Protein backbone atom coordinates (compact mmCIF):
# COMPACT_ATOMS: atom_id res chain seq x y z
CA UNK A 1 0.00 0.00 0.00
CA UNK A 2 1.31 3.42 -0.95
CA UNK A 3 0.68 6.86 0.55
CA UNK A 4 0.12 5.74 4.12
CA UNK A 5 1.18 9.29 5.02
CA UNK A 6 -2.07 10.62 3.58
CA UNK A 7 -3.91 8.17 5.79
CA UNK A 8 -2.07 9.52 8.82
CA UNK A 9 -3.25 13.02 7.91
CA UNK A 10 -6.84 11.79 7.69
CA UNK A 11 -6.43 10.18 11.10
CA UNK A 12 -5.07 13.36 12.64
CA UNK A 13 -7.91 15.44 11.21
CA UNK A 14 -10.47 12.91 12.47
CA UNK A 15 -8.93 12.85 15.93
CA UNK A 16 -9.41 16.61 16.18
CA UNK A 17 -13.12 16.36 15.54
CA UNK A 18 -14.73 15.32 18.78
CA UNK A 19 -17.35 12.78 17.91
CA UNK A 20 -19.89 11.88 20.60
CA UNK A 21 -22.12 9.91 18.32
CA UNK A 22 -22.84 6.24 18.74
CA UNK A 23 -23.15 3.80 15.92
CA UNK A 24 -26.93 3.98 15.63
CA UNK A 25 -27.44 7.71 15.98
CA UNK A 26 -28.56 9.72 13.00
CA UNK A 27 -29.66 8.16 9.74
CA UNK A 28 -28.88 4.61 8.71
CA UNK A 29 -29.06 3.55 5.09
CA UNK A 30 -29.22 -0.19 4.39
CA UNK A 31 -28.52 -1.48 0.89
CA UNK A 32 -29.54 -5.03 -0.08
CA UNK A 33 -26.34 -6.72 -1.19
CA UNK A 34 -27.25 -10.35 -1.88
CA UNK A 35 -27.02 -12.06 -5.30
CA UNK A 36 -30.33 -10.52 -6.42
CA UNK A 37 -29.32 -7.01 -5.34
CA UNK A 38 -25.83 -7.21 -6.80
CA UNK A 39 -27.05 -8.40 -10.19
CA UNK A 40 -29.70 -5.65 -10.26
CA UNK A 41 -27.06 -2.96 -9.67
CA UNK A 42 -26.78 -2.54 -5.89
CA UNK A 43 -23.02 -2.00 -5.94
CA UNK A 44 -23.03 1.25 -7.97
CA UNK A 45 -26.00 2.39 -5.86
CA UNK A 46 -24.13 1.82 -2.60
CA UNK A 47 -21.03 3.40 -4.07
CA UNK A 48 -23.04 6.47 -5.06
CA UNK A 49 -24.35 6.79 -1.49
CA UNK A 50 -20.80 6.62 -0.13
CA UNK A 51 -19.56 9.24 -2.58
CA UNK A 52 -22.46 11.63 -1.96
CA UNK A 53 -22.14 11.31 1.81
CA UNK A 54 -18.39 11.92 1.66
CA UNK A 55 -18.84 14.87 -0.70
CA UNK A 56 -21.57 16.53 1.35
CA UNK A 57 -19.90 15.62 4.66
CA UNK A 58 -23.03 14.06 6.12
CA UNK A 59 -21.19 12.73 9.14
CA UNK A 60 -24.19 11.28 10.98
CA UNK A 61 -25.31 9.12 8.06
CA UNK A 62 -24.07 5.53 7.81
CA UNK A 63 -24.43 3.15 4.86
CA UNK A 64 -24.33 -0.59 5.44
CA UNK A 65 -24.62 -3.53 3.06
CA UNK A 66 -27.23 -6.07 4.18
CA UNK A 67 -28.72 -9.34 2.89
CA UNK A 68 -31.85 -10.06 0.91
CA UNK A 69 -35.32 -9.27 2.29
CA UNK A 70 -37.08 -11.58 -0.15
CA UNK A 71 -38.35 -9.12 -2.76
CA UNK A 72 -35.70 -9.94 -5.33
CA UNK A 73 -37.78 -8.79 -8.32
CA UNK A 74 -37.75 -5.14 -7.23
CA UNK A 75 -34.08 -4.87 -6.25
CA UNK A 76 -31.96 -2.80 -5.71
CA UNK A 77 -33.73 -2.18 -2.40
CA UNK A 78 -32.61 0.55 -0.04
CA UNK A 79 -33.97 1.18 3.45
CA UNK A 80 -33.62 4.50 5.23
CA UNK A 81 -33.90 4.35 9.02
CA UNK A 82 -34.40 7.54 11.02
CA UNK A 83 -35.39 6.95 14.63
CA UNK A 84 -38.48 4.75 14.45
CA UNK A 85 -39.21 5.66 10.84
CA UNK A 86 -38.36 3.16 8.16
CA UNK A 87 -38.70 3.96 4.46
CA UNK A 88 -38.17 1.20 1.91
CA UNK A 89 -37.16 2.21 -1.60
CA UNK A 90 -37.01 -0.17 -4.52
CA UNK A 91 -35.63 -0.25 -8.06
CA UNK A 92 -33.12 2.34 -6.92
CA UNK A 93 -30.55 3.64 -9.40
CA UNK A 94 -27.88 6.34 -9.15
CA UNK A 95 -30.38 9.04 -10.11
CA UNK A 96 -32.68 7.90 -7.32
CA UNK A 97 -29.77 8.01 -4.87
CA UNK A 98 -29.26 11.71 -5.59
CA UNK A 99 -32.94 12.39 -4.97
CA UNK A 100 -33.01 10.32 -1.77
CA UNK A 101 -30.01 12.25 -0.45
CA UNK A 102 -31.29 15.73 -1.30
CA UNK A 103 -35.03 15.29 -0.81
CA UNK A 104 -35.16 12.76 2.02
CA UNK A 105 -31.90 12.69 4.00
CA UNK A 106 -31.32 16.44 3.77
CA UNK A 107 -34.84 17.69 3.00
CA UNK A 108 -36.70 15.32 5.32
CA UNK A 109 -39.36 14.31 2.78
CA UNK A 110 -39.41 10.72 1.44
CA UNK A 111 -39.16 10.37 -2.35
CA UNK A 112 -42.55 8.82 -3.10
CA UNK A 113 -41.62 7.88 -6.68
CA UNK A 114 -39.48 5.01 -5.42
CA UNK A 115 -41.18 3.86 -2.21
CA UNK A 116 -42.13 0.21 -2.08
CA UNK A 117 -45.85 0.99 -1.89
CA UNK A 118 -45.75 1.82 -5.61
CA UNK A 119 -44.83 -1.79 -6.39
CA UNK A 120 -46.18 -3.83 -3.49
CA UNK A 121 -48.99 -3.20 -1.07
Amino acid sequence: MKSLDDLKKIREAAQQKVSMRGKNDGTRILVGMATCGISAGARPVMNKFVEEIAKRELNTVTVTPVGCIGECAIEPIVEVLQGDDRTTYCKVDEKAVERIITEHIIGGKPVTDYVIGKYRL
Partner: protein
Amino acid sequence: MNELSLHILDIVQNSIRANASLVQIIVNEQKASNIYTVTIIDNGHGMNAQTLSNVSDPFYTSRKTRKVGMGVSLYKMACELTEGSFTIESEENVGTKVIAAFTNDHIDRAPLGEIEETLCILVLNDKDIDVLYKHTIDTSEYVFDTREVKQVLEGIPLNNYEVIMWIKNNIKDGINTLEEERK
Protein backbone atom coordinates in the same frame (compact mmCIF):
# COMPACT_ATOMS: atom_id res chain seq x y z
CA MET B 1 -23.17 -10.25 -13.27
CA ASN B 2 -20.64 -9.18 -15.85
CA GLU B 3 -17.61 -8.48 -13.67
CA LEU B 4 -15.59 -10.88 -11.55
CA SER B 5 -15.53 -8.28 -8.78
CA LEU B 6 -19.34 -8.51 -8.53
CA HIS B 7 -19.06 -12.27 -8.07
CA ILE B 8 -16.39 -11.72 -5.43
CA LEU B 9 -18.70 -9.32 -3.56
CA ASP B 10 -21.43 -11.94 -3.71
CA ILE B 11 -19.29 -14.90 -2.62
CA VAL B 12 -17.79 -12.99 0.31
CA GLN B 13 -21.31 -12.39 1.67
CA ASN B 14 -21.24 -16.11 2.50
CA SER B 15 -18.01 -15.63 4.46
CA ILE B 16 -19.64 -12.80 6.38
CA ARG B 17 -22.64 -14.97 7.20
CA ALA B 18 -20.23 -17.70 8.31
CA ASN B 19 -18.87 -15.28 10.93
CA ALA B 20 -15.40 -15.03 9.42
CA SER B 21 -13.03 -12.52 10.99
CA LEU B 22 -10.62 -12.49 8.05
CA VAL B 23 -11.34 -12.79 4.35
CA GLN B 24 -8.47 -13.14 1.88
CA ILE B 25 -9.05 -12.38 -1.78
CA ILE B 26 -6.19 -13.34 -4.04
CA VAL B 27 -6.18 -12.52 -7.74
CA ASN B 28 -3.36 -13.97 -9.79
CA GLU B 29 -2.97 -13.22 -13.52
CA GLN B 30 -0.29 -15.25 -15.25
CA LYS B 31 0.29 -14.57 -18.92
CA ALA B 32 2.83 -17.37 -19.37
CA SER B 33 0.51 -20.14 -18.19
CA ASN B 34 -2.62 -18.29 -19.43
CA ILE B 35 -4.38 -18.82 -16.11
CA TYR B 36 -6.33 -16.19 -14.18
CA THR B 37 -7.06 -17.39 -10.66
CA VAL B 38 -9.34 -15.87 -8.06
CA THR B 39 -9.03 -17.45 -4.62
CA ILE B 40 -11.26 -16.47 -1.71
CA ILE B 41 -10.30 -17.82 1.71
CA ASP B 42 -12.19 -17.23 4.95
CA ASN B 43 -11.87 -18.43 8.52
CA GLY B 44 -15.62 -18.74 9.08
CA HIS B 45 -17.47 -21.73 10.48
CA GLY B 46 -17.06 -23.79 7.30
CA MET B 47 -19.38 -26.45 5.90
CA ASN B 48 -19.83 -30.15 6.46
CA ALA B 49 -19.43 -32.64 3.60
CA GLN B 50 -23.20 -32.79 3.04
CA THR B 51 -23.60 -29.00 2.62
CA LEU B 52 -20.43 -28.79 0.55
CA SER B 53 -21.77 -31.31 -1.95
CA ASN B 54 -24.96 -29.23 -2.40
CA VAL B 55 -23.47 -25.78 -2.46
CA SER B 56 -23.24 -25.24 -6.21
CA ASP B 57 -26.81 -26.43 -6.76
CA PRO B 58 -28.92 -23.32 -7.48
CA PHE B 59 -31.90 -24.90 -5.75
CA TYR B 60 -29.99 -25.40 -2.53
CA THR B 61 -29.89 -22.79 0.23
CA SER B 62 -29.56 -22.91 4.00
CA ARG B 63 -32.04 -20.05 4.26
CA LYS B 64 -35.64 -20.57 5.22
CA THR B 65 -37.03 -17.43 3.57
CA ARG B 66 -36.64 -18.61 -0.02
CA LYS B 67 -35.86 -21.72 -1.97
CA VAL B 68 -32.97 -20.74 -4.20
CA GLY B 69 -29.32 -19.84 -3.70
CA MET B 70 -27.77 -18.63 -6.95
CA GLY B 71 -24.52 -17.02 -5.83
CA VAL B 72 -22.12 -19.94 -6.03
CA SER B 73 -23.75 -21.51 -9.08
CA LEU B 74 -23.51 -18.28 -11.09
CA TYR B 75 -19.85 -17.88 -10.17
CA LYS B 76 -19.13 -21.50 -11.05
CA MET B 77 -20.82 -21.02 -14.42
CA ALA B 78 -18.77 -17.88 -15.15
CA CYS B 79 -15.65 -19.92 -14.45
CA GLU B 80 -16.59 -23.02 -16.42
CA LEU B 81 -17.60 -20.94 -19.45
CA THR B 82 -13.90 -20.18 -19.86
CA GLU B 83 -12.98 -23.89 -19.70
CA GLY B 84 -11.67 -23.17 -16.25
CA SER B 85 -11.89 -25.17 -13.06
CA PHE B 86 -13.87 -24.38 -9.94
CA THR B 87 -13.22 -25.93 -6.54
CA ILE B 88 -14.50 -25.35 -3.02
CA GLU B 89 -12.70 -26.77 -0.02
CA SER B 90 -14.21 -26.42 3.42
CA GLU B 91 -13.70 -27.69 6.90
CA GLU B 92 -16.06 -27.12 9.79
CA ASN B 93 -14.80 -24.57 12.32
CA VAL B 94 -11.73 -23.89 10.16
CA GLY B 95 -13.01 -22.07 7.09
CA THR B 96 -13.72 -22.22 3.40
CA LYS B 97 -11.62 -21.75 0.29
CA VAL B 98 -13.15 -21.03 -3.12
CA ILE B 99 -10.74 -21.36 -6.03
CA ALA B 100 -11.80 -20.30 -9.51
CA ALA B 101 -9.21 -20.74 -12.25
CA PHE B 102 -10.18 -19.07 -15.53
CA THR B 103 -8.54 -19.35 -18.92
CA ASN B 104 -7.00 -15.88 -19.04
CA ASP B 105 -7.45 -15.01 -22.72
CA HIS B 106 -10.77 -16.82 -23.16
CA ILE B 107 -13.38 -14.60 -24.78
CA ASP B 108 -15.87 -15.41 -22.02
CA ARG B 109 -13.49 -14.56 -19.18
CA ALA B 110 -15.22 -11.59 -17.55
CA PRO B 111 -13.07 -8.59 -16.64
CA LEU B 112 -12.30 -8.00 -12.97
CA GLY B 113 -14.17 -4.69 -13.09
CA GLU B 114 -14.29 -2.21 -10.26
CA ILE B 115 -12.74 -4.26 -7.50
CA GLU B 116 -12.13 -1.12 -5.41
CA GLU B 117 -15.91 -0.65 -5.10
CA THR B 118 -16.31 -4.26 -4.02
CA LEU B 119 -13.60 -3.94 -1.39
CA CYS B 120 -15.02 -0.66 -0.03
CA ILE B 121 -18.41 -2.28 0.44
CA LEU B 122 -16.77 -5.20 2.23
CA VAL B 123 -14.92 -2.78 4.50
CA LEU B 124 -18.21 -0.99 5.29
CA ASN B 125 -19.71 -4.18 6.61
CA ASP B 126 -20.80 -3.74 10.19
CA LYS B 127 -19.16 -6.93 11.48
CA ASP B 128 -15.69 -5.41 11.37
CA ILE B 129 -14.20 -8.18 9.26
CA ASP B 130 -10.59 -7.83 8.15
CA VAL B 131 -9.94 -8.01 4.43
CA LEU B 132 -6.71 -8.90 2.71
CA TYR B 133 -6.55 -8.28 -1.04
CA LYS B 134 -3.59 -9.47 -3.03
CA HIS B 135 -3.34 -8.91 -6.77
CA THR B 136 -0.49 -10.37 -8.78
CA ILE B 137 0.18 -9.72 -12.46
CA ASP B 138 3.02 -11.97 -13.64
CA THR B 139 5.65 -11.04 -11.05
CA SER B 140 4.39 -7.67 -9.73
CA GLU B 141 2.18 -7.58 -6.69
CA TYR B 142 -0.20 -5.19 -4.94
CA VAL B 143 -1.39 -5.88 -1.39
CA PHE B 144 -4.14 -4.16 0.56
CA ASP B 145 -4.71 -5.19 4.17
CA THR B 146 -7.27 -3.64 6.51
CA ARG B 147 -5.18 -4.75 9.51
CA GLU B 148 -2.36 -2.53 8.27
CA VAL B 149 -4.78 0.36 7.70
CA LYS B 150 -6.23 -0.06 11.20
CA GLN B 151 -2.76 0.15 12.69
CA VAL B 152 -2.19 3.55 11.10
CA LEU B 153 -5.66 4.76 12.06
CA GLU B 154 -5.23 4.18 15.82
CA GLY B 155 -8.89 3.69 16.57
CA ILE B 156 -10.44 5.96 13.93
CA PRO B 157 -13.07 3.68 12.35
CA LEU B 158 -12.63 2.33 8.83
CA ASN B 159 -16.12 3.53 7.95
CA ASN B 160 -15.01 7.15 8.23
CA TYR B 161 -15.84 8.42 4.73
CA GLU B 162 -12.48 10.07 4.16
CA VAL B 163 -10.83 6.78 5.03
CA ILE B 164 -13.13 4.94 2.63
CA MET B 165 -12.25 7.34 -0.19
CA TRP B 166 -8.55 6.89 0.60
CA ILE B 167 -8.94 3.10 0.48
CA LYS B 168 -10.74 3.30 -2.83
CA ASN B 169 -8.10 5.49 -4.44
CA ASN B 170 -5.28 3.42 -2.98
CA ILE B 171 -6.61 0.21 -4.52
CA LYS B 172 -7.35 1.87 -7.85
CA ASP B 173 -3.85 3.38 -8.04
CA GLY B 174 -2.23 0.14 -6.91
CA ILE B 175 -3.86 -1.90 -9.65
CA ASN B 176 -3.26 0.78 -12.30
CA THR B 177 0.43 0.67 -11.42
CA LEU B 178 0.44 -3.10 -11.90
CA GLU B 179 -1.25 -2.73 -15.28
CA GLU B 180 1.32 -0.17 -16.38
CA GLU B 181 4.21 -2.36 -15.30
CA ARG B 182 2.82 -5.14 -17.45
CA LYS B 183 3.02 -2.85 -20.48
